[in-house]
């Protein structure tokens, strides 16, 4: 695959093109399972890891953490997968320098696999979140999901100054809190 083709795929993914994501999934699936087969994990676990690796890659591209690649997409996805396999095997003692943003991947892995929130809380938070206004939804998503700082958000959403974003975020959180409490009590 030429550099232009890789760039094209990255650009399409940045536009959240689900067809490109699907084709990426299908192309790399068998090679990944073959490569990962030597680690003592069953196929369900491996597929789970593969799906998370694809999504971590997608997340990096969509949110602008990865804008160009010096290796192939396959190599990149395999590196993420290898990291996740080692995490799963809990045998990770040291990871070498790679083109990957490991801090971000670490957070991603943590959010994707650990029980940071109980199912019942998740239900209430999701229901509360859906009832928020679209502006608040967008702001909270940019901050907590895409990992933008308040200054980034100020530029992204064209706020006048930092304090406006800060108090807007604080209002949104308070509103969300009351909505979640209503869900919990209702």
């Amino acid at each position, binding site marked *: 695959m030429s550099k232009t083709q890789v760039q094209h795929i990255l650009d399409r993914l940045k536009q959240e093109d689900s067809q490109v994501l699907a084709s990426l*999934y299908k192309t790399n699936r068998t090679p990944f399972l073959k490569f990962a087969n030597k680690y003592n994990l069953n196929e369900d676990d491996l597929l789970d890891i593969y799906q998370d690796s694809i999504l971590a890659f997608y997340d990096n591209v969509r949110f602008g953490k990865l804008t160009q690649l010096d290796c192939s997409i396959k190599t990149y996805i395999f590196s993420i997968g290898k990291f996740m396999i080692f995490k799963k095997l809990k045998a990770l003692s040291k990871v070498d320098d790679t083109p990957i943003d490991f801090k971000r991947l670490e957070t991603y892995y943590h959010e994707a696999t650990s029980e940071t929130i109980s199912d019942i809380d998740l239900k209430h938070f999701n229901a509360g979140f859906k009832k928020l206004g679209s502006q608040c939804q967008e702001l909270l998503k940019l901050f*907590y999901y895409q990992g933008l700082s308040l200054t980034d958000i100020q530029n992204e959403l064209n706020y006048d100054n930092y304090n406006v974003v800060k108090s807007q975020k604080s209002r949104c959180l308070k509103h969300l809190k009351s909505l979640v409490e209503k869900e919990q009590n209702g």
Partner: protein
Amino acid sequence: MDKETLIANYFSGKLTVEEKQEFERLLINDPEFKKQVSFEKKVKASIFKQNHNALKSDLKTIENNLSRKALLKKWYWIAASVVIFIAISFTFFGNKKNNEALFAQYYTTAANTSHPIVRTENKAINKELKAYIAYENKDFKNAIPLFNEAYNNIKKSELLFYKAICLLETNKTNEAISMFLKHQTFKDVLYSKSMWYLALTYLKENQTVTAKQVLNIICENPENYNYKNAKILLSQL
């Protein structure tokens, strides 16, 4: 810095060392602060899960469509394997397999699960990485001195396990046995794996009684590496 900014910077990963200390201190001493952090952690987790789960279920749909197609193919292979298995069973019927054959049946080179190798350009490669690269390339002869040096430098016990595998692969069976035994004194994450390979090595050396003793130890705990295989192998000896 006010508490709200402190929490915001925590989530953006932008706390300095001093701010981090202040953050930790407030977590312990200020119940309101702690409550707010825990609330925001849940906000983060719920937004993440919501988006992640939606995307993941898209991928699962793709996966299910792929698997259905693969299923027909799979049944063909299962049927073929059953025929071959029956044929082999007839050939060996009444014959207890000898140790060499059992070794060959159960032995596969241990995968490197200790040190992921990701190659990048312009990076100095250390001895440890070199050893693992040689290992993954099945260059066991050259891997042995590399594991030696790496171990002398950093004293990481897992290196001894891979060195033992290299010795076994290069037919230095007796040296492999003592290396596995040395490795096991450290009781690291590869301990039970090391036991399994030690059992196989004894088998290769025709020391069936000792092999059985090691297998019996493996069979004591279902969490041990290759617990099921150890049971089956034991019944075949």
